[in-house]
């Protein structure tokens, strides 16, 4: 009978989930059909494999909630992967792992893991491959050239849905960073700070499926500009943004650091605003890979996961930021002057207009891929016409963002994982309710899908 006892019940002892029956068996005998029952039994077995200890399982369920746990399990079928993940430090399937990255500070946790030895500690031999642009990252992940990669947070969703590329199921292990982007304008616009006067501007973003694109569009639209008609938004790889700004090809960009600070350092631009001023706590980049790779190499994936989570935990501490800046500055990684990286990571920076600003949360590192972040991204993809028709927001995000896994592994590594998202999603003063995505999309006056 124990197989049919509901392991998704976070309460100890006997009793059922709904509370109306004396035992789970009685509860289940009353309601579901045979098919549902066997599916539940399967999932129950999986959950037991994942958490052999009852107390641990209950803690986990309390932390993430029952529906999320069910969804996460469903996304991880077949069970082979689950069982392997349950024996936490199982033998890794492959030692040599190739990871792609774009040389920007968003990738800090996964880059610093190499010089600071986080990968080595997990028994991995990781080769970090610097890559020229996001389209190339997408192709190399899909071509299986990279085992895992630094990705923009919307990319795994877009690739899984087959928007802008062939469809291939992807998984997001962790969010790399939150905040840490900025709108940089050419110095000639230093007296033209009101977006209402920006008609005809040419802007650059790193990729179509990026927070940069969605935040820039959001910001412009809030000021009455239609991003598809009133301005030009081009895709420019981050490293080429400063050169283009200097050449006058673009008026500004919403780009990743260090290239905002680098434009200031090279006296070609100034920081108009930090993206944290638009949405404090927004995600930017993520770390993930193809779902089939996760299923084939569950232990290697878990080991990578642990390495990056530990790195993110170290990066979250403001006192470590200077050390990290020095570790990731060399030509092998970001290839940037240390003073530039330090300004980005510590948040004490020159704005390019003669002021020294102090914004400690200019960039933050909260690795949990909260599902509501993914839902927000999908609403913007719908808003700007990248997605058409009915969107199953929640289901898609639950399949791609491995939120429960992140929390579980963080706990196992002794890293504090909050049960709820630490900050509510409020973009430019407007709160977002992840339970009602369609209404949110409809609430915008300027949108393509009107």
């Amino acid at each position, binding site marked *: 009978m124990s197989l049919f006892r509901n392991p998704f019940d976070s309460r100890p002892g006997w009793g059922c989930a709904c509370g109306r029956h004396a035992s789970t068996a009685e509860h289940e005998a009353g309601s579901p059909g045979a098919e549902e029952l066997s599916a539940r039994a399967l999932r129950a077995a999986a959950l037991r494999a994942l958490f052999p200890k009852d107390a641990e399982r209950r803690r986990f369920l309390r932390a993430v909630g029952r529906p999320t746990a069910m969804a996460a399990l469903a996304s991880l079928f077949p069970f082979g992967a689950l069982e392997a993940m349950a024996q936490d430090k199982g033998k890794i399937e492959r030692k040599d792992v190739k990871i792609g990255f774009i040389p920007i500070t968003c990738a800090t946790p996964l880059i610093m893991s190499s010089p600071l030895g986080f990968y080595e500690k997990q028994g991995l031999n990781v080769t*970090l491959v*610097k890559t*020229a642009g996001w389209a190339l990252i997408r192709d190399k992940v899909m071509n*299986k050239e990279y085992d895992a990669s630094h990705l923009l947070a919307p990319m795994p969703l877009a690739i899984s849905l087959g928007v802008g590329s062939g469809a291939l199921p992807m998984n997001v292990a962790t969010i790399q960073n939150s905040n840490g982007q900025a709108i940089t304008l050419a110095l000639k616009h230093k007296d033209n700070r009101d977006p209402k006067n920006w008609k005809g501007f040419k802007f650059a973003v790193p990729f179509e499926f990026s927070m940069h694109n969605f935040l820039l569009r959001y910001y412009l639209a809030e000021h009455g500009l239609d991003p598809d008609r009133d301005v030009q938004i081009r895709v420019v790889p981050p*490293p080429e943004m*400063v050169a283009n700004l200097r050449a006058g090809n673009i008026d500004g960009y919403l780009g990743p650091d260090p290239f905002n600070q680098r434009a200031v350092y090279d*006296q070609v631009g100034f920081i108009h605003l930090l993206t944290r001023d638009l949405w404090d706590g927004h995600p930017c980049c993520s770390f993930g890979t193809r779902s089939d790779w996760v299923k084939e190499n569950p232990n290697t994936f878990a080991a990578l996961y642990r390495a990056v989570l530990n790195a993110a935990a170290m990066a979250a501490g403001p006192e470590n930021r200077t050390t990290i800046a020095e570790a990731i500055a060399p030509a*092998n990684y970001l290839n940037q002057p240390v003073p530039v990286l330090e300004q980005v990571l510590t948040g004490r920076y020159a704005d390019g207009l*003669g*002021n020294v600003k102090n914004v400690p949360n200019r960039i933050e590192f909260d690795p949990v891929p909260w599902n509501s972040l993914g839902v927000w991204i999908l609403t913007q993809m719908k808003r700007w016409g990248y997605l058409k028709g009915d969107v199953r927001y929640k289901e898609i995000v639950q399949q791609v963002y491995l939120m429960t896994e992140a929390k579980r592994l963080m706990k196992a590594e002794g890293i504090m994982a909050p049960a709820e998202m630490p900050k509510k999603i409020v973009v430019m003063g407007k709160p977002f309710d992840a339970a009602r995505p369609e209404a949110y999309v409809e609430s915008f006056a300027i949108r393509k899908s009107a």
Partner: protein
Amino acid sequence: MSLAGKAALVSALLLAICLGAWHVATLPKASADAAMDPEYARLMGLDKPKTDGLPTLAQLGAASWKQLAHPFHDSGSNDKGIGIQLAYSLGRVTLGFALAALVAVPLGFVIGLSPLAHRALNPFIQVLKPISPLAWMPLALYTIKDSAASSIFVIFICSVWPMLINTSHGVASVRRDWLNVAKTLEAGTVRTCLQVILPAATPVILTGMRISMGIAWLVIVAAEMLVGNLGIGYFVWNEWNNLSLSNVIFAILVIGVVGMLLDLLFGALQRAFAYVE
């Protein structure tokens, strides 16, 4: 003074003028003005002399020396010495070029020997020849699914045309008399091809190869910048990333010198196989 001596003198003078203009143009500007907040100046990197734009000659020299002093240093997967980067690029060029030669020379023979093949294939060659090799890159990445193989494919596709056209031209324009002599001596097709046509067409084929190699060396830099595989093009891109113009200029000079050496190599080959009728 001999002509060569005069030419050398003019070359040296031109170089001196260029370097002089460079030196004047890049004299360090005034750095932080006194009124500036010292912390702001430090954050902007203005507490030390800093040039905006082109590096000074001294900076270029220092950067070049730093690169040349450790040409084979290996400080990680994304930071290797200029010698290793060059080896990667030359390896790719050699491979793509060799594959192109394997296809172009036999095919060129067929086209040169058979007027039918010439007429049938000509439209395809004329359409495919003017396509920029880099335009193939997205298609190559999508179909070959491997970035290293894609850059080799791009080298292949750009070096195949000059070789193909020159081979067919060289084969087609072998003197009739020689072919007739071979016929009277009852030499078979294979023997005629290998002992009469091939030696006669070799100088033209080598000219095609020389042109192909020149193009391949032009294209590899762009291909590596696009795809980001290790190599001299990647080196340029990585230093552009860091806006380090000294290193970019250094790399440009290296690319020029290596290109010249490759050209000299094929020039020597051409001389070795040249003949007087």
